[in-house]
């Protein structure tokens, strides 16, 4: 192998991307050519520098989750639904047999839908909630907390949860109400939010993952169905999830599938 050919294979030798025959020839050349040896050392050095000093940035977790959510939302509606139901079932309120699932600690947000469509509105909402939740972390509110200016909602919440000393926050929220649960490491928001003239959707989520999570579409689909029928029942393993509208608020209830009585009671209460 002469210098010209060696130069052609120098990178392959450094990267160990060379077959045995060429390697022998190249190494033989290297042992008797000081100039090429210099090039070889420099190329090795540069490789070492690039691979050791080039900082890899891991993909942020938030971005990973956002992408997974966006992939899931490309799935068919029924496939999505199963996934969300699994999520709903992970909630502690749903573990009781007749979990009249006031899943929500509830919230009504009187933000008008954005002219740019729901997505923009949705992200603004997420930002508002998220920022306020972060702020709340510093206030040591009790585990069950509701923030609202609507006295009826406050009263209902208080009696439903047996809270003796409700605390009211002093914030200038755009939101009228939001339910926040204080877990050890994060805040979860149980929300009802308004996204059409008189329709309120419920969502439950980790506030960090609220943004772009795809829930909106999910509840809209259910709402569309509820315009045609009184309730939507979805069976999943031992549970049935029943969705229904109460004063234009979408509510979700989880019922043990074996408890036919509870189901009948729930449906009867619709009339």
């Amino acid at each position, binding site marked *: 192998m002469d210098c010209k050919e060696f130069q052609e294979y*120098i990178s392959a030798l450094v*990267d160990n*991307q060379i077959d045995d025959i060429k390697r022998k020839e190249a190494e033989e050349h290297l042992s008797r050519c000081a100039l090429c040896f*210099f090039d070889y050392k420099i190329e090795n050095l*540069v490789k070492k520098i690039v691979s050791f000093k*080039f*900082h890899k940035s891991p993909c942020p977790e938030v*971005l990973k989750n956002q*992408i997974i959510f966006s992939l899931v939302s490309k799935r068919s509606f029924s496939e999505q639904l199963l996934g969300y139901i699994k999520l709903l079932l992970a909630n502690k309120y749903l573990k009781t047999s007749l979990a009249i699932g006031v899943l929500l600690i509830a919230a009504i947000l009187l933000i008008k839908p954005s002219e740019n469509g729901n997505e923009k509105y949705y992200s603004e909402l997420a930002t508002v909630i998220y920022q306020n939740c972060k702020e709340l972390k510093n206030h040591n509110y009790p585990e069950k907390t509701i923030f609202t200016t609507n006295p009826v909602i406050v009263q209902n919440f208080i009696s439903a949860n047996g809270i003796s000393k409700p605390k009211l926050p002093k914030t200038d929220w755009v939101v009228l109400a939001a339910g926040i649960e204080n877990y050890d490491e994060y805040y979860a928001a149980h929300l009802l939010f308004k996204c059409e003239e008189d329709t309120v959707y419920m969502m439950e989520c980790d506030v960090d993952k609220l943004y772009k999570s795809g829930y909106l579409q999910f509840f809209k689909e259910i709402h569309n169905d509820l315009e045609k029928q009184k309730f939507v029942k979805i069976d999943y393993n031992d549970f049935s999830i029943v969705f229904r509208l109460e004063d234009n608020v979408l509510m979700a209830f989880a019922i043990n599938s074996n408890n036919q009585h509870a189901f009948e009671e729930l449906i009867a209460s619709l009339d």
Partner: protein
Amino acid sequence: MLQDSERIVKPPIENLDEEFRKEALPHMDALYNFALQLTQNSDDAADLLQETYIKAYRFWDKFEKGTNCKAWLFRIMKNSFINFYRKNIKSPEKLDYDEIEEIYETIKSNEQNPHNLDREIYENVFDDEIMTAIKSLPEEFRTVLLMCDVEGMSYEEIADFMDIPIGTVRSRIHRARKLLAVKLYDYAKSRGYNVDEIGKE
């Protein structure tokens, strides 16, 4: 009480196709890096990564099972980048490779012992200077070099991905390293590294 892990609402990852989950998702970190390299900023990189995965998922049935999924994803990303991003990004100035070659030869004639260079460059060049030097490489060199040295892809994978012959991969990597050597040498010198003295040792 439930365990904390049950409380946290995670993305419903189990809804994704199982093969996709196993084959494609683990490459997110590598692809994010590649997106950063291509776009040079984290916002565009995030968009590019998301677009790549959405496309990959949509065309998952087109992926030939058993072939290299990582290379397939890289290819999708590169094509997406070319289609939508490249026109918005300022490409580095054109380099006169012959000129670089000349400078390199000058360094070479001043430096008979590569071990000194090794030490001086390695210890004297800052990390951000290395990044700047890499960024200043012409795109076709930079991409190939980073796939090799950072992503650890084989020449064959790179050739396949870039759709170029293996000989071209070899020469691009070689040239990219020469360019970098010249740039890093300049940085090391500006740190007070005296070429003449080292030459006398």
